[in-house]
């Protein structure tokens, strides 16, 4: 029995893991489900000693585990299999297999080789001990990592999104291995955001959201129950203001694109002026590809993209900007703001159209003061973005938007924000909509999608499986579609 008690991990104002208590039976496969940013990875890294928790206890079969050291966690029998296993790429399989063992200075390659082949044989893995790891596929590297962890005497095996980059055959092999291990008494934690995989392999599942444990369920269970736990309570849509829609602003026609192992085929979508289109789907179902194509970050393999009537297919991000496209990324600090530059400097950068070669610092200061007042950013002109909370970072990004935008593309506009910030963000966004801006946003929050969209596009496995009028649908229907099934 693996017991996690009251695990907290905060990063400044961000509560990555917010008081999670979870028990996992030995000899079972336990799914950990949640959207990106739900706290799954952080929790698992705490468990494996990669991250030191702020508070909390972990015990295995009644014994407290040492925290904050991967070496000690491994010695206690907890091993984490990364999505992309951390290997020394130029070294051969055998050398990687032997890494991390508490062994004498002289290594016995012969014995290790025998052990490697024996373990590999048991699970039907074919691994050449002398092949450099860089020549292996990700799936083979996972196999190597699994038997390496087994040889170290692991009793708890954590797999973090293990199927993201492996083939279907390798997936079947992996699942068979996990079932064998569990039947032999191994505790397996299977972290994923893919409902169908969790349903296929796990005995029990726990769902995380916003760093908290929302609930656990025995499998099999109804998928919609899990969707509801992942995406939040399904409220009925609030009354929306009907804004007359204008001309088409974004026209995506028959686009096929491959990005990060997700292939999107024959995607067509039109977004009109003053229209809000929400994009729903499990992470990695193709929403990201649509947004990237819309802003020119990814060049489609076929099909065309038009912005405001201009053909911008394959013309690049800056050309899209020139046509009034604006993009607010999910990773605000990594892709939106510049660490180390002050708020005033951000406005001098963003207000570029008005600023000449010689910077007018007074003007930058004036516009920064006006804007951070208008968007209630809690910070001064000299604050740097890394010192702001997530909500204030998002408000700052909104405040920096140019005055004329024809199409605004966003990922998770309110992820990690408290209700007050989220409301303010949408008030500002809808004000833009009223001025004629078309809004295309992806969100993992059904409530947000239903509340603010005019139309909801649902992705499943790289395809748009539905385009729904938001007024005529409800959370239940969308939940079904997200899980890949039409409402029966």
């Amino acid at each position, binding site marked *: 029995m693996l017991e996690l008690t009251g695990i907290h991990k905060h990063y400044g104002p961000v509560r990555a893991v917010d008081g999670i208590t979870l028990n996992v039976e030995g000899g079972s496969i336990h799914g950990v489900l949640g959207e990106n940013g739900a706290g799954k*990875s952080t929790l698992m890294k705490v468990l494996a000693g990669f991250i030191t928790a702020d508070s909390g206890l972990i015990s295995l079969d009644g014994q407290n585990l040492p925290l904050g050291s991967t070496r000690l966690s491994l010695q206690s029998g907890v091993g984490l299999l990364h999505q992309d296993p951390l290997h020394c790429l130029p070294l051969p399989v055998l050398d990687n297999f032997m890494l991390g063992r508490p062994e004498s200075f002289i290594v016995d390659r012969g014995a290790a080789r025998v052990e490697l082949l024996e373990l590999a044989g048991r699970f039907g893995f074919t691994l050449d001990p002398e092949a450099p790891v860089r020549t292996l596929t990700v799936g083979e590297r996972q196999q190597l990592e699994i038997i390496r962890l087994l040889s170290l005497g692991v009793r708890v095996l954590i797999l973090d999104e293990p199927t993201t980059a492996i083939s279907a055959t390798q997936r079947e092999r992996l699942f068979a291995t996990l079932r064998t291990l569990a039947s032999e008494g191994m505790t397996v934690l299977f972290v994923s955001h893919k409902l169908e995989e969790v349903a296929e392999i796990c005995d029990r599942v726990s769902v995380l959201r916003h760093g908290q444990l929302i609930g656990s369920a025995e499998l099999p269970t109804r998928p919609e129950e899990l969707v509801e736990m992942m995406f939040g309570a399904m409220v009925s849509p609030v009354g929306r203001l009907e804004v007359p829609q204008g001309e088409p602003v974004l026209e995506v026609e028959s686009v096929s694109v491959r990005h990060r192992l997700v292939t999107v085929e024959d995607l067509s979508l039109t977004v009109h002026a003053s229209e809000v289109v929400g994009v729903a789907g499990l992470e990695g179902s193709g929403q990201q590809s649509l947004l990237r194509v819309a802003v020119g970050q990814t060049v489609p393999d076929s099909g065309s993209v038009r912005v405001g009537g201009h053909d911008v297919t394959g013309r690049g991000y800056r050309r899209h900007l020139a046509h009034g496209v604006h993009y607010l*990324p999910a990773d605000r600090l990594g892709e939106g703001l510049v*660490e*180390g530059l002050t708020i005033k400097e951000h406005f001098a950068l963003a207000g570029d159209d008005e600023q000449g070669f*010689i*910077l007018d610092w007074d003007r930058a200061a004036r516009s920064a003061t006006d804007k951070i007042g208008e968007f209630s950013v809690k910070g001064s002109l000299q604050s740097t973005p890394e010192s702001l909370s997530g909500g204030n970072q998002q408000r700052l990004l909104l405040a920096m938007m140019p005055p004329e935008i024809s199409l605004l593309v966003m990922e998770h506009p309110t992820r990690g924000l408290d209700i007050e910030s989220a409301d303010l963000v949408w008030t500002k966004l809808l004000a833009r909509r009223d001025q004629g801006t078309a809004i295309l946003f992806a969100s993992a929050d059904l409530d947000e999608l239903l509340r603010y969209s005019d139309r909801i596009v649902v992705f499943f496995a790289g395809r748009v499986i539905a385009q729904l009028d938001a007024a005529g649908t409800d959370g239940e229907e969308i939940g079904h579609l997200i899980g890949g099934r039409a409402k029966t």
Partner: protein
Amino acid sequence: MITTSGRHVVLAVVGSVVLAFVLFLASGANPFEAMGLLVQGSIGSPRQLSTTLLVWIPLTLAAASLVITFSAGLWNIGVEGQIVLGAIGATWVARSVGGPGWAVIPLAMIVAVVAGSLWAMLAGVLKLYGGVNEIFGGLGLDFVATGFATYLIIGPWKRDGIASTSGTELFREDVWLPTIGGENVSWVALTLVVLAVIAVVLLMSGTSFGLKLKAVGTNLHSATRLGIPANRYLLVAFALGGSLAGLAGSTQVLGFTHKLVPSVSGGFGFLGILVVLLAGFRPILVAPIAFFFAAITVGTTFLELRIGVDSSVGGVLQGLLVLFVLLSGGWLRRRQAMAGTVPPEPAVPTPSGEVSADPAPAAGGV
């Protein structure tokens, strides 16, 4: 990016003075006498001050060049080679173009600036389009440049009948930079350095170019999202940095050696890195810190003549000073991280999904 606050610069200066005392004691000198001689030897007389300024000129230009490329987030170690190319360009003009000195000198400088700039852009092109890290590109081009200079000196530009690495024939005197009084430092070079430093300070603090360059250097992803053509900015940073290094090459040959010598770059490209690190990448601090370093370099030579302490102690002192500044900065950050006010590494856990792991956007910028 490393930043230095006043507090730990003071801490570092005190630390290295203490270490200098220990160093002098260890080499059998009286530390107080040695310190006095250090000051006397560097700024104690017009002759000494003039010698210090001779070192200050190329060092300041090299450091100013590095401020630009470091701000762009580039680990540019190709300044040595750019100085050499500048020197070669100036030498070529000085040797082959006739006419009055007042016309040849500016022409030589312009050619030097262009040569240094092109050489730097070569490192930039290698980085942006060839996938060669600027550290390796710069280092490789340094060696190529020095080799090229040596070839010219013992080959096409050798002195009549003698092929020696001691240098080419002296330039005719009317292309020598005019000096101040009877000293050997040139007012032309000094003026140019002051102008260059002012230009870099203004460029980095008062122009949209400088601000965008800083954004590119700090966060390439965000800068690209803001619509800044990152590749173009990086190339221009290389070109501007190279032009200052090329200028340093021309003042070296026209104002100091009066001929092309293999060691014309004098290590200033590397010493300049220490100056910039100590300045915390702030252009305003480059000139005074470069002066301090020049004084140590010249002063310790004097020390060797007077009390027999080897002048290499100067390099040791300069290196220790920089290490102390970086160390005290790192130590302060670590202490803040322990106190929990600043997370040691990522401020926010990066989502493991598609968004955070985007490939670098630099490829599409130009």
